[in-house]
């Protein structure tokens, strides 16, 4: 066990830090569209400098760095207050899945534009009646001579309005809940696809609904075998979670620094209830960060992420929600005025225990797949 960075990791980090000072994209615009454009340009800058797909193999256009260097990169971006690249879904999920489960043709077709950000990706898993229960999906893909025809509706898809490709999970027949789903890469720029923004409780519209009406997907865009969608999707979701942890923990620590600053600004620094609640959150966030690095070492040993990723997802949601609650108590009687930072993040955090798999589902995963407890049948 060695928690210090290797000389190579130190060199990578120092070079990156220097580069970030010289190439920082500046303050991210507040408007959703402005922010996305900003993050598209930023991804291009990262790509040109060889900082896109840090841990992807060189033969697939990545930097060929280690997962540890990928984690260092994520942390340094947060530390430098630089945004994440625009095609985060493609980089964190789409690419890794194609590298692991895709064909050579798919790799040569899809990977490069993911790295450059020339093609944005989105994820089409959840449906109005299938949030936690993927087996309840109703979106259908029927095979004809022109390939697959898709009909159905997806919800909670970020970036859908700008995406070129959608990771689409659809029913392809059969009753076995683990064998009747197929994982498609669906072209979003076709007549059969309609995207509508979804307004959420914060008032923002980060997400969209996608309506598929006779959208067409060619055979070569099936990932894995027909009927293997379930397995491929689970892998995707685990990559999503493996991405979290360390960097998100750092982001929370930065938020806690800002909250401590707010407490001092308001002259409440001697209120030990507030300070101990903040201290407890600092402790919880640090354990989340450490769990993240321990999990990463496991991934490096075993190759693919394990169900342990669900721990970080639960901790992340719980901590963010407690931060929001503490902030309201710090604001006291002023908590009833909309605040661009604190009241907004208090509201936004309520979705953290729902999006990307509810905390209840994560606990099911830990109970069944890590602790081997029996499943309700």
């Amino acid at each position, binding site marked *: 066990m060695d928690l210090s960075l290797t000389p190579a990791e130190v060199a990578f980090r120092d070079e990156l830090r220097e580069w970030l000072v010289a190439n920082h994209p500046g303050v991210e615009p507040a408007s959703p569209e402005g922010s996305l454009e900003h993050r598209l340009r930023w991804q291009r800058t990262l790509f040109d400098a060889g900082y896109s797909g840090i841990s992807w193999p060189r033969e697939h256009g990545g930097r060929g760095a280690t997962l540890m260097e990928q984690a260092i990169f994520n942390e340094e971006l947060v530390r430098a207050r630089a945004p994440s690249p625009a095609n985060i879904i493609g980089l964190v999920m789409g690419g890794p899945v194609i590298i692991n489960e895709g064909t050579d043709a798919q790799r040569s077709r899809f990977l490069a534009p993911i790295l450059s950000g020339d093609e944005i990706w989105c994820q089409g898993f959840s449906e109005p009646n299938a949030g936690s229960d993927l087996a309840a999906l109703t979106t259908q893909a029927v095979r004809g001579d022109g390939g697959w025809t898709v009909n159905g509706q997806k919800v909670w898809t970020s970036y859908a309005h700008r995406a070129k490709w959608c990771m689409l999970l659809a029913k392809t027949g059969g009753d076995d809940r683990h064998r009747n789903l197929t994982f498609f890469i669906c072209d979003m720029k076709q007549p059969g696809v309609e995207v509508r923004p979804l307004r959420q409780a914060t008032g923002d519209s980060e997400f969209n609904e996608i309506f598929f009406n006779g959208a067409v997907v060619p055979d070569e865009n099936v990932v894995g075998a027909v009927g293997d969608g379930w397995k491929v999707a689970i892998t995707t979701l685990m990559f999503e979670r493996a991405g979290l942890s360390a960097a998100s923990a750092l982001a929370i620590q930065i938020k806690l620094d800002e909250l401590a600053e707010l407490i001092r600004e308001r002259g409440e620094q001697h209120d030990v209830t507030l300070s101990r609640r903040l201290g407890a959150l600092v402790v919880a966030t640090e354990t989340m960060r450490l769990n993240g690095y321990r999990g990463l070492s496991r991934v490096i040993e075993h190759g693919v992420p394990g169900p342990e990723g669900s721990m970080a997802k639960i901790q992340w949601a719980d901590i963010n929600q407690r931060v929001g609650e503490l902030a309201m108590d710090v604001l006291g009687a002023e908590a009833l005025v909309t605040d661009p930072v604190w009241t907004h993040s208090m509201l936004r955090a*309520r979705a953290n225990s729902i999006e990307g798999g509810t905390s209840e589902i994560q606990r099911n995963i830990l109970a069944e797949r890590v602790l081997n407890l029996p499943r309700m049948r």
Partner: protein
Amino acid sequence: MRFDLTDDQRAVRDAIDELCRSRWDSAAARGYGAGTSDDSALWRELVAAGWTGIAVSEEHGGQGLGTVELTLVCEGLGRALAPSAFFGNAAAAVLVAAAGDDEQRRRWLPGFASGEARGALGTWQPDGTALAYDAEGAAALLLVEPGRAAVVAADACTFEKTDGVDITRRLTRVTIGAADDLRGDVDAAVDRVEVALSAELVGVANRAMDLAVEHARTREQFGRPIGVYQAVSHRCADMLIDVESARSAVLCAAWTADNDAGSLPFAASVAKVAASQGAWRTTTASLQVHGGIGFTWEHDCHLLLRRAVASGHLLGRGDWHLDRVAARRGLGANAS
């Protein structure tokens, strides 16, 4: 001892629920908060039914009913997320009646009771301005801060619309003119306002629970209504405990305000802590039970959560009440 509502009190509760059902819904609440519609229809009915003067003495033009009846109206309006100037006006009346002098009572209470010259509630902020709900159109503003309350004519203030976390109410930042202090027992008066506010929070929590239970009965995942899963059903059971505990505490505090003034500080603190924490826990838990749909703008979950946060913090921090309770046992920062 009889710890349940009399038939008359049940009639008040049912009447306010019926009124809200017929004259109000969450679309109206959203429109009111956004300023695209108003609440005049509801307000006229509240005035016509005499609810605005429900707890004001008959001598000052009210119905002379008790604080229990007032809290039943507040709970009903809270359940319906009715914004309406009702709460601010009632709070203003409670403050003037409990801490004002005869002259102040004569000047303000009749207008508050009839609703013709209504009052609004404002809280002093560190910068000297005040935050107030539904202040436009009010005749007087009642301002509170720990240990102090004052009344000021609205025409002596300037109002600036502000975005509130609670989007079913209209929040304004008020620059205050010459304010006329209330010289009576301000703490006792503010405790009564806390009780009315807590009653509103009970209504909010109850509505959040009802929505969660209904969703848990009908929403199916994994081939079963999600209410069969203990992660959902036990969360709903905890909501029930929070709602009923807060309701018990509010009813007791309301009765105590009229019958046992010496016990009011404790009873009011119990009510405020139980109601504000209960409303926060219940509205957040309800959103969780709803899942994604509960986080959409169109769903009412966030309206209830926003109301729980804003009303829960309106008069300051819950720790203040825990300190008051602990002080009764010789504990706390100022203990000897």
